[in-house]
């Protein structure tokens, strides 16, 4: 059985874990660098990006994950997880001096849609999926590609919300908050960890 890691420092860890276990993967919660050795893909969950960055640094995870991402290791970041993967971060209301893993050529604009009262649900068309996907957007970022290598897989009227750059997948919404596992499957299929659907 292949193992998928879920960064388990803060945020929607249990939700991703449940979906991955249903897909018959062994899930390893990542809190320390040595736990990274036994996994074939990594999920960075939603949560607070400033908290996640603080804790990744504190427990020595930033550099190893950065190295893996650069070497083609499959990583899927949702919401805050996508912010962590982006090379540039800005905020709607003011400047931010936030660090990140700087792996994908993407500018994440945090809280693009506004504060919590503006959080929303919208049905999305996703490249690679036949039917629409329920996007749960919570204080969500917008994900602007900064290079040709970034493939936009889904957009709302305002701009891109699901992008892929080779081994890196970034979504500004939360597939883990639905019971729909198709996006997780798509990521794992394209990363060669799951047989392609007929």
């Amino acid at each position: 059985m292949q193992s998928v890691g879920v960064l388990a420092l803060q945020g929607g860890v249990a939700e991703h874990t449940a979906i991955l276990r249903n897909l018959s993967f062994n899930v390893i919660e990542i809190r320390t660098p040595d736990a990274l050795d036994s996994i074939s893909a990594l999920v960075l969950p939603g949560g607070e990006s400033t908290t996640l960055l603080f804790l990744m640094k504190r427990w020595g995870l930033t550099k190893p994950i950065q190295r893996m991402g650069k070497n083609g290791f499959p990583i899927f970041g949702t919401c805050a997880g996508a912010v962590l993967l982006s090379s540039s971060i800005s905020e709607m209301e003011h400047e931010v001096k936030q660090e990140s893993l700087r792996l994908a050529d993407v500018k994440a604009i945090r809280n693009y849609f506004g504060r919590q009262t503006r959080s929303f649900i919208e049905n999305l068309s996703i490249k690679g999926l036949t039917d629409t996907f329920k996007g749960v957007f919570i204080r969500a970022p917008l994900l602007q590609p900064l290079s040709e290598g970034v493939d936009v897989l889904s957009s709302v009227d305002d701009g891109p919300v699901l992008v892929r750059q080779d081994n890196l997948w970034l979504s500004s919404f939360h597939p883990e908050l639905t019971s729909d596992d198709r996006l997780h499957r798509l990521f794992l299929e394209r990363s060669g960890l799951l047989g392609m659907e007929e």
Partner: protein
Amino acid sequence: MNKTRTEGTWEAKAGLARMLKGGVIMDVVTPEQAELAQNAGAVAVMALERVPADIRAQGGVARMSDPDMIKGIQQIVDIPVMAKCRIGHFVEAQILEAMDIDYIDESEVLTPADERNHVYKFDFKVPFVCGATNLGEALRRIGEGAAMIRTKGEAGTGNVVEAVRHARSVLGSIRKLKVTPPEELMTIAKEMGAPYDLVKYVHENGCLPVVNFAAGGVATPADAALMMQLGMDGVFVGSGIFKSGDPEKRARAIVEAVSRFNDPEILAEVSKNLGEAMVGINISTLPDEERMADRGW
């Protein structure tokens, strides 16, 4: 605007709380404290004029904070900003919603505005967190639309004993309900004074339908880890940080402790040299009328 877009749904409201799991929410009274909290890794801040320890000390009626003061905090941090309204004070809640607050705490720390009724929270796009001392109370609040639950504990005391009592009560009842035969559920709903469909949900799923945080009396990294090991999803720290000797160090230590709550060696390391903890209060010496946990039902 896209026709399929809907705002303020239950998924979005309860979903934000899910993203706060494993995190620490800190009470702050100034923009400077808010910034310190964010830098220390807080997942959200609770903006208020006085921390519970000061509300306790100063007495009088405690109300919603000045919107201008809350706005100052919203402008300085990127993490979610929460604020408190009085129990049953739906106009304070309307004001907080109009200010684009991210989460409202309908809180017993403020003086209740209604002794019988809580706010009907389904009317709002902004999500609510409410305190509970037992499972019946938690399910009543969820029945009114709360998208997140926390223990009441005894705020402003620096004493974790009440939070532990409430956590054990809620979690113990959930464990019991899981193995209860279905024919007993209606009687339990009646005795608990809780909506039947929510009692049934807990029986079938073995958990609350919303996230459940610890609050009220958490003062040290060990307190926070204790609440996490008991099974809570995250921690509110009120007076515990900014009433201590070295707020910055303590704030970071509590965040670190919550992220590694099952690792005693790490807990030992982060608990070192934090300066003085807030001076606590023995709950048994508190007169009944000063017990905040008894407010609301």
